[in-house]
């Protein structure tokens, strides 16, 4: 239930502006890959191109290929809706649907595309997804209460439960802990460690310790200056990137000398 992603020569544009230039990267199945780099270097933008969420922004487009187990996400006739149902996403700020109960939030993705699901199946799925997100014990007695009543960390885990309920191949996380306190952050990090048994996880983070803690591989993105495109500088095993990077820029960044 997880697939690998191979990106070949990807350029991302906002209108005429080249935001990310010439990225090629191979992301292994059932692993955690972290994207690090200074603000504005295009790592979030690049992450969004992996499930075509960048298309929500007017004028955003890509050139190049993103292969999910060999199938090009940008091939002719590929529907972004199908892509997103296979490649889930968790956002910077927790965003459960405020008008839905906890239970309905988990089932939101499953009920899409007019899929019918019996109450019994739904109950099983809600429990499995919430357990998968380490949230079941905290919310099992209040499944009908609004999701917006939970704490920030719980809301973020609810969003993860919502994402894994549709059984995606890949889960993308865009700075999932940046709005959370350290304890909630730890809960999410533990969860990421468990998720990689079943899913391919890609995470963007500003927190280098976090990248070092949770990821198997790390990609360092950088930008030469304002108005210049972001580039993938170095990609390798997390251990190597943090202890013995090839590029000078990577070493400067991970050792805190800039950025």
């Amino acid at each position, binding site marked *: 239930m997880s697939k690998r992603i191979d990106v070949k020569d990807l350029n991302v544009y906002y209108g005429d502006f080249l935001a990310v230039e010439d990225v090629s990267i191979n992301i292994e199945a059932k692993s955690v890959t972290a994207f690090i780099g200074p603000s504005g270097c295009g790592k979030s933008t690049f992450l969004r191109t992996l499930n075509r969420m960048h298309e*929500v922004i007017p004028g955003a487009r890509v050139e190049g290929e993103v292969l999910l187990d060999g199938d090009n996400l940008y091939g002719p006739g590929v529907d972004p*809706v*199908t892509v997103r*149902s296979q490649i889930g*996403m968790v956002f910077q700020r927790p965003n459960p649907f*405020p*008008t839905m109960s906890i239970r309905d939030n988990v089932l939101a993705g499953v009920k*899409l595309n007019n899929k019918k699901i019996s109450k019994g199946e739904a109950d099983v799925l809600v429990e499995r997804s919430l357990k998968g997100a380490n949230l079941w014990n905290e919310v099992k007695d209040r499944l009908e209460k609004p999701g917006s009543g939970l704490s920030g960390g719980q809301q973020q885990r609810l969003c993860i439960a*919502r994402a894994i309920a549709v059984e995606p191949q890949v889960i993308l996380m865009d700075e999932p802990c940046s709005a959370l306190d350290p304890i909630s952050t730890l809960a999410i990090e533990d969860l990421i460690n468990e998720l990689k048994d079943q899913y391919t996880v890609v995470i963007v983070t500003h927190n280098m310790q976090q990248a070092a803690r949770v990821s198997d591989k790390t990609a360092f993105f950088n930008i030469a200056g304002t108005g210049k495109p972001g580039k993938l500088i170095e990609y390798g095993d997390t251990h190597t990137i943090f202890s013995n990077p090839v590029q000078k820029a990577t070493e400067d960044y991970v050792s805190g000398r800039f950025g």
Partner: protein
Amino acid sequence: MTATSLTSTQGAGRTGDKVFSGAALAAGCLILAVLFGVALFLVVQAIPALTAPADKIQGGQGFFAYIWPIVIGTLIAAVIALVIATPVAIGVALFISHFAPRRLASGLGYVVDLLAAIPSVVYGAWGAAFLAKQISPAYGWLAENMGWLPIFQGPASTTGKTILTAGIVLAVMVLPIITSLSREIFLQTPKLHEEAALALGATRWEMIKMAVLPFGRPGIISAIMLGLGRALGETMAVALVLSSGALTASLIQSGNQTIAAEIALNFPEASGIKVSTLIAAGLVLFVITLAVNMIARWVITRHKEFSGAN
């Protein structure tokens, strides 16, 4: 060191605060006073009609017998207007906020706002002189083919000046109100929620069902209530379009009357108890509008927990 006392009496910076809070308080009180004054006027002036013997009231059957047909007529016209206008308005608002290319959206929004600026007498004239004639063949068809439904019972009006025509004209009039309010609400849907839906694999329409409409629900209800307020109280358009008469279930015969049009048509020549009767009718309209607004508020607060405000 110069003494900087915490208890400085130099309140120069405070004058603005005081003036502003005073002005705000006065404005708030003024609204209440005006509302109370109007209500008081209506009640005092209506009492003679409410207490008069039945045979003194127009129709000779007492105030209740006089008022209830036109209450029903008012509600019929307003309901027709809302049934037609609400889906169209929400559709147009969604198109402007989420589907149309930006340039088309702003142009269309402008045109919709322009619709609200047309005086109601113009709508009335249009309804009476143009729409009624154009639409009467359709009434003939309805009477022939769907006459088994009480609301489409024949014989259809040949002039087309029916409560249904009045309702359609009202629908056109409330359309811009509901549209522009709904559009504003839809535009305020948090990007986060829209993206959450899209990232789950929602199509555009599913995203709207999942994020935009539930978020906008209280706003949509408020917009409909404002439209309803206008439809209930609209005088000129109804007075011009509707060929009024006794209460009838059929929407395509002439007949029925609304409170506002009844007051407007009869007030200039009224005197004595008749004036009081019309004012009492106005009081009834006031109470209906108040009740509708309170119900709407109740509907909105019932779902407060899930509104996203917390």
